């Protein structure tokens, strides 16, 4: 298959995915669409941050990308090829190109395996990546690359701190030379001084290796630091997307505006009394999404149209796409 340089590494087209739930012991089975029509793309060597609150479907997107969950409809294209129709063999080869780094480095490393065993495991499963006689040298090289002592390859995960363990996870992900790493809240459990180290490491690896990141997080500060582009997710759909600084400087969707105003930042000591945009209540359940615009029950701009007509994700003159009938610059004083 010919590969064009402009083909994104990852492309999701109208992805719908979710879970089957049974309500009550004898209740009907019903499908819950945690992801309700998501399209996005990640270019080679690029970082796309998928940001949203709990239950917005961002981790379901990750599971679908990793082929851990079969989408109900839509496409997951890797290098232009739709993986949803792939055979097991093809899928296995493809999986090597997409790796995952989780939130919890404690849970994702087998405590009975040494660092060397953890890293070489994938080479055992996918023969042909690294020849056996090169394993020791490769392990040492990988450890060095992620800032760990190459002499510690025979140690076990519990002998490392949380930040060091996350470095082991990153080394393991790199061992199969992936083109895309899905980072699911990969720095959320780390202390801030260590978090900054890991972010710097990921950035350096991207420059050196050209790996792309689909970076899933709830932390709006991390997003601004780390992302080339942002997709803001709310209740299974993307409500706004664009280049990071554009979104942060001129958010066009009311949900993005509320999120950014609510995110506490170091600079906020200057205006402690300034009132952020406060949304009422909690996000609605994906079990029973609201009609029309899914954000309308919490939005301060809701009009009749929002209750019936679902807004499409398009550019309404703000320079980037936003899924709001009335997308536009933030007008002050809609604090509730």
């Amino acid at each position, binding site marked *: 298959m010919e590969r064009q340089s402009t083909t994104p590494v990852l492309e999701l087209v109208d992805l719908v995915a979710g879970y089957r739930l049974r309500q009550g012991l004898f209740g009907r089975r019903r499908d819950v669409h945690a992801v309700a029509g998501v399209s996005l793309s990640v270019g080679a060597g690029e970082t796309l941050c998928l940001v949203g609150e709990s239950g917005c479907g961002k981790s379901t997107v990750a599971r679908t990308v990793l082929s851990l969950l079969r989408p109900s409809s839509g496409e997951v294209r890797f290098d232009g090829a739709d993986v949803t129709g792939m055979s097991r063999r093809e899928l296995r080869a493809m999986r090597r190109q997409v790796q995952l780094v989780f939130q919890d480095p404690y849970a994702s490393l087998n405590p009975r395996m040494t660092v060397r065993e953890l890293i070489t495991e994938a080479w055992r499963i996918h023969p042909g990546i690294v020849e056996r006689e090169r394993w020791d040298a490769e392990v040492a090289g990988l450890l060095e690359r992620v800032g760990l002592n190459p002499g510690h390859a025979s140690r076990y995960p519990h002998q490392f701190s949380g930040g*060091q363990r996350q470095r082991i996870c990153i080394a393991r992900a790199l061992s199969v030379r992936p083109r895309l790493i899905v980072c699911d809240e990969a720095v959320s459990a780390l202390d*801030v001084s260590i978090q*900054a180290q890991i972010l710097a490491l990921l950035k350096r690896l991207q420059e050196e290796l050209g790996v792309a990141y689909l970076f899933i997080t709830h932390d709006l500060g991390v997003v*601004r*630091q780390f992302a080339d582009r942002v997709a803001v997710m709310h209740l299974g759909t993307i409500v706004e997307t664009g280049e990071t600084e554009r979104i942060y400087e001129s958010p066009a969707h009311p949900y993005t505006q509320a999120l*950014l105003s*609510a995110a506490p930042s170091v*600079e906020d*000591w200057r205006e402690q009394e300034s009132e952020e945009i406060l949304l009422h209540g909690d996000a609605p359940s994906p079990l029973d999404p609201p009609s029309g615009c899914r954000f309308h029950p919490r939005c301060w701009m809701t009009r009749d149209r929002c209750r019936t007509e679902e807004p499409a994700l398009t550019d309404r003159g703000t320079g980037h796409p936003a899924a709001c009938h009335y997308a536009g610059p933030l007008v002050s004083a809609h604090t509730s």
Partner: protein
Amino acid sequence: MSALLEVSGLAVAFGGVRAVRGVSFSVDEGQTLAIVGESGSGKSLSSLAVLGLLPAQARVAAGSVRWDGQDLLALEADELRRLRGEELAMIFQDPLSALNPALTVGYQVGEMYRRRRGFGREQAKRQAIEAMTEVGIPDAARRADAYPHEFSGGMRQRVMIAIALALRPRLLIADEPTTALDVTVQAQILRLLRRLQRDGLAMIIISHDLGVVARTAQSVVVMYAGQAVESGTVADVYPAPAHPYTLGLMAASPSARDGGRQVRPIDGYPPDLSSLPGGCTFHPRCPFARERCRTEEPTLRQVAPGRASACHYAEEVLARGAAVDHAGA
């Protein structure tokens, strides 16, 4: 004039480890103090020691805790228990594990009135509904009959606040109160805490998040490896930290506000409490470290009116911070 709560020289031993080593702070009515630090800094143990709620392996090794003039550490267990709830209260990060899943929320809020005020069931429930309304739980009369799992994370934290404030205590200690919450819900809870503070409540917020502290507290104590390394008002410390660790934390905190600022990590890892480095415990990670820092442990000393730092070169750090002024806004 003495403060409402005055902690001085507090030391806590945890197992064989000196987990908190000589921490002092004070809080006044209507004021919020933040204790900031990363995991293992001793910030939570310090506040648990104040309330006499230390885990079994831990004990207060030194120091005093004066509450409104009396020594809390000298109190009998049942006297302290009476004070908790009546005068001092605490909320935690995870409200779900603090609530009984088998009892209605209204019953659990009402428990304070039944046990401490001798109210009957009906009267306690009426009080509980009032307390729930006060912390912003909508439709409290109906929601009082629901169980904790029927509440969202934000609403559960409101329930915990209602329970903590039921007997109108004068001090609320909040240990990472919004860490488990979504950002839009966090904003709601922080606004509620600010309102309570304006009504005269004294508060201690324990947090790893400098942004949360910036939004809620007037003064701050920064802890590292069991020690207070810096203290002062938020308005003094934030623009120009007087300790290299504070400076490093500020630089490492990613900001949603300021796109121009690049986060800078702090090198190295926090020390193992059972084998602390000699001299200043921060010296292996400190860009300011010199020979003296490897051998001589700095003590927390006044570096400006109302400000203290445990760094030999605090004045130099101060000058650097003021020069950098990572403000922007």
